[in-house]
């Protein structure tokens, strides 16, 4: 087996009295799509914030491409090839689609003609090719979600972390988005970490899945193993009733 891309060793993050992430360890292998699922408030977004450098882990260690990245700034981690999107879809509302994607490419590509090519290619991939001059905030919701992925992917990360990229999309849009995510993995050899609530989608696209519950890892394995794991079934169906 090749060396893992990202190793999280027993990461925890505390907010005052609550442990949002508790002693969570996982590895991401190059080339795979790894899913991260769990009920609301399980700590998925907090995990994203910790691995991408937006929050420092309270304890634990992060290794990316063999390098210790614990405590590095978000920008520094991004420049090493780990880029994330935000759950609530983040974009530069008052700027054009073109400039949104250009910002994503700015650090990754050094010359202006290269940047323009990067913008066009990325826009085309995400179905935004004809909209380069539209203002981001005026796009329909589905395209705004695509644009927030485009900004992140314009940096051509090695590990792309998507926090609920499909939320709020209708079924046609979701199918198209999934196809794009598949192309990002296959054609660009990008490793992907994906959070989503749509179980069917996660089961279909992910090679491996980790399940979080109350900040702790409940299970990890192939979609098949997760589907049949009694703990997972209980966390999703049992607890509430």
């Amino acid at each position, binding site marked *: 087996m090749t060396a893992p891309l990202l190793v999280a060793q027993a990461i925890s993050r505390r907010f005052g009295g609550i442990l949002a992430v508790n002693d969570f360890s996982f590895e991401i292998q190059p080339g795979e799509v790894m899913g991260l699922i769990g009920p609301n408030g399980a700590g998925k977004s907090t995990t994203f914030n910790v691995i*991408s450098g*937006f929050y420092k882990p309270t304890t634990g260690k992060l290794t990316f491409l063999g390098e210790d990245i614990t405590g590095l*700034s*978000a*920008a*520094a981690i*991004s*420049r090493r090839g780990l*880029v*994330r*999107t*935000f759950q609530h879809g*983040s*974009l*530069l*509302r*008052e*700027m054009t689609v073109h*400039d949104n994607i*250009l*910002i*994503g*490419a*700015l*650090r*990754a590509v050094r010359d*202006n003609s290269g940047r323009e090519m990067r913008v066009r290619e990325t826009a085309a991939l995400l179905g935004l090719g004809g909209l380069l001059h539209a203002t981001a905030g005026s796009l329909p919701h589905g395209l705004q979600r695509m644009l*927030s992925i485009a*900004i*992140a992917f*314009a*940096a051509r990360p090695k590990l792309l972390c998507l926090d609920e990229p499909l939320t709020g999309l209708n079924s046609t849009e979701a199918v198209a988005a999934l196809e794009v995510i598949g192309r990002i993995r296959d054609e660009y050899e990008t490793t992907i970490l994906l959070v989503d609530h749509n179980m069917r989608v996660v089961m279909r696209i992910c090679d491996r899945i980790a399940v979080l519950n109350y900040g702790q890892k409940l299970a990890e394995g192939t979609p098949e193993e997760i589907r049949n794991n009694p703990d997972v079934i209980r966390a999703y169906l049992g607890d509430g009733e």
Partner: protein
Amino acid sequence: MRSARAGQIVVALAAAAVLAFAVLGDDEYTQHLLMWTALNAVLAVGLRFMLLVGETNIGTGAFYGMGAYMGAICTTKWGLPFPLALLAGGLLAIVVSTGFGLVTLRTKGPYFMLISFAFTEVVRLIYTRVEWLGGNSGIIGIFPPQALDPWMSVLTFLLCGGLILMMYLCEQSNLGRVFRAIQNNDAVVETVGIDVVQIKLVCLVIASFSVGIAGSLHAHIYNVISPGDFSYLVPVFALAYIKIGGDANVMGAVIGAAILTVLAQMLQGMGSLEHVLFGGAIVASMLVLPDGLLGGGRRLLRLFSRGRA
């Protein structure tokens, strides 16, 4: 696209006209009005420069004052040549704003505004306490070389125009795009590998440099400076220039500075009524023209062209 080109031509023509006036005109009062306008325009464009990253930098007043005091000291105490006095004002502003930015730029919004406000007031208090800087009464007799006298308004116009042009070009470049992106959503900018604090520092330093040079010019144009000239009111007025002219682009700030500088002069000598009328004019224009004169003009133009079509 076409209207942007037309706008550039109008601006160039207006600048040429003012320049010709500065060279040929011999009415001293009007020449002074021109210089005050130019200084205020740099202040407005400098304050607006940091508004591009979303921060209201009350420190603009402090850096303007530092430039003025530095320029005054170079000329009156150290006997340095005038160009060096101008440059020294800008350089001091660079050094101090770098330190100030490194300490404060992790804060943003109202926090940064309050800190920069406190900074400006503390610096002003320091002037009043230091005997060497003239204490409360400040420094007098700050003159540019006599040979430059007939050229001062041209020089001021060109220098201020150059500083404004520099900031304008920064805004049009990719750096300016990053500024706007930070104002829109700094987390997104950070996720694609750009150091937000570092970019904000660059922004602060460029603006402070410009304002510092303008401050040194101020000292040599007014010939007298005192601590009270460099309070938080400096950026507050600059903000009024921006809002009245229109904050969508640099020209709005320049036009606002020109109108309010002239208005303030016209109202002078009316006693306390001056401030009432000045404030009233600001409030009235904000109510009638929320996006400034430039924005109002643009709307009028659009209305007009739609009426014809």
